[in-house]
């Protein structure tokens, strides 16, 4: 807490300490959304840059880590909005588990394409909620929306995904 106080007061050493303390968490969170390690590096720096610029607006009594995560989520969403649409999700990330080998490569690509074609605001909910299995309340916090709004977005995303997958001949 003391560190956040010092950061809000504009101490450069507090900013560096916060950066070193949270860069891993921020990077991991962003990579879960954008699934691109190079972009995640840039977006981590962008997140801390936004945080640094907004330090005057930070309330020292608030939850700094949650505030930082929200900034990171917005930066990742901005990236998804500006990134080329319909780009399949990269597979070169060090995943916890390998993709199901029984699943045909073409089917896997069709599923990844369907996710990539979702709008960024739906894609982020699917990535975090279904793939990474983050609790809905944490997703709501990170997006700055209500728990109900997360559920509605998830419902819409699943309906759209089902439609796209059925069109591709895959029955979910």
């Amino acid at each position: 807490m003391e560190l956040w106080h010092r950061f809000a007061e504009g101490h450069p050493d507090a900013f560096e300490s916060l950066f070193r303390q949270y860069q891993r968490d921020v990077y991991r969170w962003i990579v879960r959304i954008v699934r691109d390690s190079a972009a995640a590096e840039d977006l981590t720096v962008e997140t801390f840059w936004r945080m640094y610029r907004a330090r005057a607006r930070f309330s020292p009594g608030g939850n700094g880590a949650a505030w930082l995560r929200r900034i990171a989520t917005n930066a990742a969403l901005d990236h998804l909005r500006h990134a080329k649409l319909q780009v399949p999700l990269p597979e070169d990330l060090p995943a916890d588990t390998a993709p199901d080998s029984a699943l045909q490569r073409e089917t896997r690509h069709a599923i990844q394409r369907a996710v990539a074609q979702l709008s960024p605001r739906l894609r982020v909910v699917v990535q975090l909620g279904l793939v990474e299995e983050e609790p809905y309340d944490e997703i709501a916090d990170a997006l700055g929306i209500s728990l109900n709004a997360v559920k509605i977005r998830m419902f819409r995303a699943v309906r759209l995904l089902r439609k796209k997958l059925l069109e591709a001949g895959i029955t979910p």
Partner: protein
Amino acid sequence: MNDRDTNHQLEAMRKLLKSAVPSVTKVEPPRDLWPQMLRRLETAPTPVPWWDWALLAAAGAVFFFFPGTIPALLYHL
């Protein structure tokens, strides 16, 4: 569609997605990003506050509409 159907669809979709798009919770940044951050801080232009621009515009307007204030200002400088 009732809640049970929705939950069933959600679960089926979760299983399908996880089989095609693996989770990446244990991923680490490949390097310390602080040097990149420092470069960003050093190269970022210093933003000029909007009120500075407003003050400049107001002074410009005064000099334009009341040119007689220019010699008075120069005298006092």
